[in-house]
């Protein structure tokens, strides 16, 4: 956090509305970056870290993906050889599991839920605060967007991000819509020479602030359950106010910030491999530029919903159905088509990570100040297995984590990885994570700096 005392945005707004001659009080000293472009010159404060999740459904082909060596270096097996260009920038975790503690296995739900919340609920209609929300509450409170959620297979329901059990953060499915949302008329280029707050935005912000003032009256008579829901509404409202407040501030220059090419209008539905791959790259570009331009520090990508509809043109059913119907080749010992799908998804992961890594920021890259948490729903989708999950992290979070490792933790709870990430970000009260048998206290210290 900056050593410079920041004026509250409410203070700034009130000052603006009280005067027609607009003067924006800004921490101007922060507006100049150091020579390498990695920190604000005056305070020496590093560019803020970023966190994101990247979910892919149905895991990988059993027995084919686990490297023989652990530690650093290690050799990538052929099944995930496609990750070689980014191997030094990722960690691979193997051997861990999700404990159900006697609860029913909500297929394609319980496993991902545990990865993102640390808990396993009895039904698929329950959830909890997700990892990105926990981290975002600490690091992502001064950006235009709290977070960006996208799904590459055209399903708004595909998301693992939530503030609580009272509803998920829906995914954007249209790259064009996301482009417009981020880089439309409301976007303020941080590198623009001239900045003048828009009076209409000031009024707009004032309108939302006035709604916030109604909070007390409404909360007076509601039940505890509804109070929690209203509280979340008002949290959403505050985030919206924050979004507008950012538009009214002269943003600090960010040399790496450029506006991406406008996305062409396209059919946003369909889950053919080529379509999903294209949207993954388009969303990746938009998210990367949004991060580089200081619009957000958080993102959540789902490559597809957990019942993965990814499909090769000409096949009569999708990847998910294929995991249950394709016989294991008696000679090779695995499902041939499913292996192909899994490798396509790994290629998409590589593409996404490379996009983040392609944005230079001084001596490093955008990926270098980010941590991306990559998880899936089943260890072996064919059996709905909750064991031997494959997990990745990418990026160091601005030097908070080491990369290039394969870490095997046979039989441990998968929650060790989110715990490691929480500790990397120095999130308060992150001495442990998860509940019941998924409660862990031991991070992967080998990769924590």
């Amino acid at each position, binding site marked *: 956090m900056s050593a410079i005392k920041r004026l509250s945005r409410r203070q700034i707004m009130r000052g603006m509305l009280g005067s027609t001659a607009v003067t924006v009080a800004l921490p101007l000293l922060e507006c100049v970056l150091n020579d390498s472009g990695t920190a604000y010159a005056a305070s020496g404060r590093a560019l803020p870290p970023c966190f994101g999740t990247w979910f892919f459904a149905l895991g990988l082909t059993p027995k084919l993906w686990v490297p023989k060596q652990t530690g650093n270096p290690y050799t990538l097996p052929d099944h995930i050889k496609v990750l070689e260009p980014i191997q030094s920038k990722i960690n691979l975790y193997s051997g861990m599991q999700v404990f159900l503690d006697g609860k029913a296995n909500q297929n394609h739900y319980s496993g991902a839920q545990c990865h993102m919340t640390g808990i396993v609920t009895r039904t698929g*209609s329950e959830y909890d605060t997700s990892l990105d929300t926990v981290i975002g509450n600490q690091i992502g409170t001064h950006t235009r967007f709290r*977070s960006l959620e996208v799904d590459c297979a055209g399903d708004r329901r595909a998301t693992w991000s939530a503030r609580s059990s009272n509803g998920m953060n*829906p995914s954007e499915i249209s790259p064009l819509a996301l482009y417009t949302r981020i880089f439309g008329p409301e976007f303020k280029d941080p590198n623009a020479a001239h900045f003048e707050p828009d009076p209409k935005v000031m009024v707009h912000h004032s309108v939302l602030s006035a*709604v916030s003032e109604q909070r007390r009256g409404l909360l007076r008579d509601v*039940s505890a359950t509804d109070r929690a829901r*209203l509280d979340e509404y008002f949290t959403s409202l505050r985030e919206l106010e924050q979004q507008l407040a950012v538009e009214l501030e002269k943003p600090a220059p960010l040399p790496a910030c450029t506006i991406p090419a406008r996305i062409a209008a396209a059919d946003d539905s369909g889950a053919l491999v080529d379509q999903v791959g294209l949207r993954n790259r388009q969303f990746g570009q938009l998210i990367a530029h949004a991060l580089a331009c200081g619009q957000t520090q958080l993102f959540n990508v789902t490559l597809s919903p957990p019942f993965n509809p990814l499909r090769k043109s000409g096949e009569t059913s999708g990847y998910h159905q294929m995991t249950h119907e394709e*016989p294991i080749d008696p000679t090779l010992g695995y499902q041939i088509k499913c292996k192909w799908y899994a490798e396509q998804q790994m290629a998409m992961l590589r593409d996404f990570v490379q996009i983040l890594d392609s944005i230079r920021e001084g001596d490093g890259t955008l990926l270098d100040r980010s941590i991306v948490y990559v998880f899936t729903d089943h260890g072996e989708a*064919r059996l709905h297995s*909750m064991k031997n999950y494959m997990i990745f992290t990418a990026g160091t979070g601005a030097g908070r984590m080491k990369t290039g490792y394969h870490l095997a933790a046979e039989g441990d709870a998968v929650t060790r990885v989110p715990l490691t990430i929480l500790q990397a970000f120095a999130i308060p009260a992150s001495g442990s994570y998860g509940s019941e048998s998924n409660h862990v206290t031991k991070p992967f210290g080998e990769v924590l700096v």
Partner: protein
Amino acid sequence: MSALPGRRAAATRLIAAVAALGVCAGLAWSSARADTATRAETSLVRLTPEQYERSIHDIFGADIRIPANKVDPGSRNDGLLAIGDRKLTLSAAALERDDVVAQAIAAQVADPRRRATLLGCQPRSEQAADDACARGFVARVGLPLFRRPLSTEEIQAYVTTQHQAAEQLHSFSAGIAAAVAQMLVAPDFLFRVERGAADAAQPGTLQLDGYSRAARLSFFLWNTTPDSELLQAARSGKLMTDAGLQHEVDRLLDSPRLESGLRAFFTDMLAFSGLDEDPGFDTLAIDAGFYPNFTLSAQNEAQEQTLRTIADLLLHKNGDYRDLFTTRDTFLTPALAALYGVPLARSQELGGAVPWVPYHFSDGEPYIGILTEVSFLSLHSHEGRTSPTRRGKALREIFLCQKVPPPPGNVDFSLVQNTSDPRYKTVRQRLTAHRNEPMCAGCHKIMDPIGLSFENFDTAGEFRTTENGAPIDASGELGGKSFDGVQQLAQLIRDDPATTSCLLDRAYSYGTERKPTAQEQTWLVRLQAELTRDGVRWRDLMRRITLNPDFYTIPMSAAPLSAAAAH
């Protein structure tokens, strides 16, 4: 969207009619709130995108353009999104979209060209605030927007917003737009705030007040905000009397708007937005390479076909709900006719922008009832082939309210699911082998025998008699009764008591947006017996539900907070 004079005029009448009501009721509401502050309690139901749109059009006119606002897909609980709406809040993304939509609507409402119909006064200056003019406007539109009169303090808050914005931007219209935008993102609009008081006769239960009763009634039957007459009945207290309630229920049931309520209910019940693994119409991706007749037009019109079939039978013909499964009357477009393999007369195709024409399937044709319509058959299939399991599961869950458990973990499907195994050419043969697996038998025995009877209809709903060269066997069994083909199955579904009880449960749950209590379930069992005897007719069902006093209650699942605790 072009202006619809009728709807626009209706909106004008609504605003005019509530004018006196809103202004004169404001003080009364303010004092009433103060009196009941320590005992009144509230419950929240999130407005659906459709309810949002219909409310805006009814209040401000049908020519108001509303940007797409379906951001949040909702959560299906106990078979209905409506029940999820009582559980969900508004995510940041959804509220952000609501804010964008509110800004767009507010700008149109404040447009000087709409002043004569919407504002009701002329400002003293185009460049300055006019508090008096704004005050009357806020009170008028606030009543139908919030489904209750605004308190004096609330009106003043919106007038202040108007004043500040108009002065800041030197524009009276900008001031009005700011006030409208503020109302449209307020929780009082985006949520239906149901208010009630503890019922001494039924501990743990809230009795809704008049305005909340009006809103529940209106959104259930019309899927929109209460009109001026209903609000007047709430204000006068008539809606809290048996006679007054009966009068308003009959008035709402006689209105053409009843079809909107019916469509909204069946859109939810039939899971047109998706059911578990099955897609909704917005994510449906049938492969046109396999099914060239399944065009985008056909996909877009399949949902409308089913809703037209339902509305025609239940409302226009006052038919029996159970006959939806055996009716041969429907409506077709050229795109749908291609899938059903029937010709439409050329003259009929030129009937309108979307050329819907009534169509009657003859006894010799294979199509019968809504279960053989493209909407059901395509939503519950794979992209390139049918799925008897999905169809059987959907039929059980949607129409019979029977929950099918998810498949267990650690099941090896591949032993019997080899589509290239020459021993198992048809889906029936493969699934029969699969059902012999003990772990799978329990659930598949209740899904597959029903789903297999639809095998004469491919993923796109087109009729076929063979699969991979082998003749299709469409026989099956339901509740111990054997049948041969979907026509016999349709009759069994029609006559199954679970079909009626499911509709009653869903309709009651949809209206109250919660599961029925034990007391209400007992009442529903009695109602089922009566309707089974007399006929399951929509208006009759709606009337009986909305005249049941329990319909206007909320079981308190959690203790309300005291006033101090909420601060």
